[in-house]
């Protein structure tokens, strides 16, 4: 990794400028990809022979489930960078990821429940993936609450980051211990690259949706962290100039 780049974007004004120029682009592409994906998924893709139209909720469920985990990974990486380089910018990014991560985890759980009700007959089963998604939500909430309940900014940042890093170490252990315990959820359908068990017409909207969610999420984080940095640096000169 190029250390110079870290130092360059680690300084708040540079990061702020980078993020605010990135944000509209990501917002535009994210929203348009999500629109294309939803049209493709909701109207163009053929009906499933078993699940009829109800399967279409996966176009919202799968991307949110993907994002909930990658957002936690991003939060953990930002926390590690923050702890190692004492970077205020990384802490701001980690802090702004947390609420949206929690939100999208809740979204994944809710869409999953809506899908499970007609398909499995119940909204909730004590299955490995559902349970570890729920545990992920708890990890997000723990981070947010810890950050909110420590008054002093710097201490709150570093304490909450330690919790996020511990969560990253623990997440695979939690996941596999729950898998070992019980599993009903169907295996994922697109990671089997050589023989995907989903037809192309159904697949492309899903991929578009996943990428769209990701880019839109980046836009949201850009917005959140730029606001966070302005709050943190409100006494410095470059903020007063804006």
């Amino acid at each position, binding site marked *: 990794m190029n250390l110079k780049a870290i130092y360059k974007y680690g300084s708040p004004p540079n990061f702020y400028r980078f993020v605010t120029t990135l944000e509209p682009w990501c917002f535009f592409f994210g929203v348009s990809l999500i629109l294309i994906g939803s049209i493709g998924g909701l109207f163009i893709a053929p009906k499933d022979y078993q699940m009829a139209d109800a399967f279409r909720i996966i176009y919202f469920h799968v991307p949110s489930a993907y994002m909930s985990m990658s957002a936690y990974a991003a939060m953990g990486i930002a926390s590690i960078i923050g702890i190692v380089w004492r970077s205020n910018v990384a802490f701001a990014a980690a802090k702004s990821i947390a609420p949206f991560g929690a939100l999208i985890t809740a979204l994944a759980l809710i869409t999953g429940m809506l899908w499970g009700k007609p398909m499995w007959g119940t909204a909730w089963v004590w299955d490995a993936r559902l349970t570890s998604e729920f*545990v992920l939500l*708890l*990890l997000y*909430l*723990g981070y947010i*609450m*810890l950050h909110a*309940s*420590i*008054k*002093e900014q710097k*201490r709150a940042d*570093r*304490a909450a980051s*330690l*919790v996020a890093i*511990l*969560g990253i*170490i*623990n997440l695979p*252990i*939690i996941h596999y*211990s*729950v898998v*070992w*315990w019980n599993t009903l959820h169907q295996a994922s359908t697109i990671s089997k690259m050589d023989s995907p068990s989903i037809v192309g017409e159904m697949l492309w909207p899903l991929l578009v949706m996943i990428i769209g969610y990701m880019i839109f999420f980046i836009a949201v984080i850009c917005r959140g962290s730029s606001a966070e940095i302005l709050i943190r640096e409100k006494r410095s000169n470059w903020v007063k100039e804006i």
Partner: protein
Amino acid sequence: MDTYIRLFSRETKVAFKRWTDVLTGIILFFLIALLFPLISDSDKDFLLKIVAPIMMFSAFFASLLSMQNMFKPDFQNGSIEQLLLSKRSFVGLISTKIISYWVFTSLPLILVSVFIASIYFVSGEAILIIQLTLLLSTLTMTFINAFTAAITLGIRYPGALMTLIIAPITLPILIFGSKAIENSILGLDISGPLYFLTGMMMLSLFLGPWITASALKISMD
């Protein structure tokens, strides 16, 4: 070595002085385990079925509640800062502190669990397995709780927040611990869960003191 022994004996004196903190865990362990048969069903088969989760559940809460004030008094009277200023390694001193805390709060649970197991009609070898499981899992939980107690040091009422942070992290230990007890009662193979618990114990033994020490440093500056 001398320093560690002196720290340990100091912790012993403090534990006898603050006996209410130490007793909290044992009382809670007893209460949860005794109330369950009273409010649900005292049928023998049913009790044998639920003894594993109850055992882990009450051990979890006992260790959580007895440890939420682990560092607070020492933090307020400044003795933790003295440990930080000491020539010896801070991590080593902290691990001595954590282990001595485990001896006073969790070791009694393991002794008491014989009684709890017998009122749940567990007999024979399974009692030993329950003790072994509790030994491994409370040690792991103690390190996790110590970290959380250190990180929530500046907060006035950390109880609910500590539970929220600890619960997801402790979940694998609860699952495998109750699996081990259940299997031993049913007469099945217990080596898998016990290996897992031992692995987690070793991991927390190495990682726990270090991460707790850095959490304490964060809370102090």
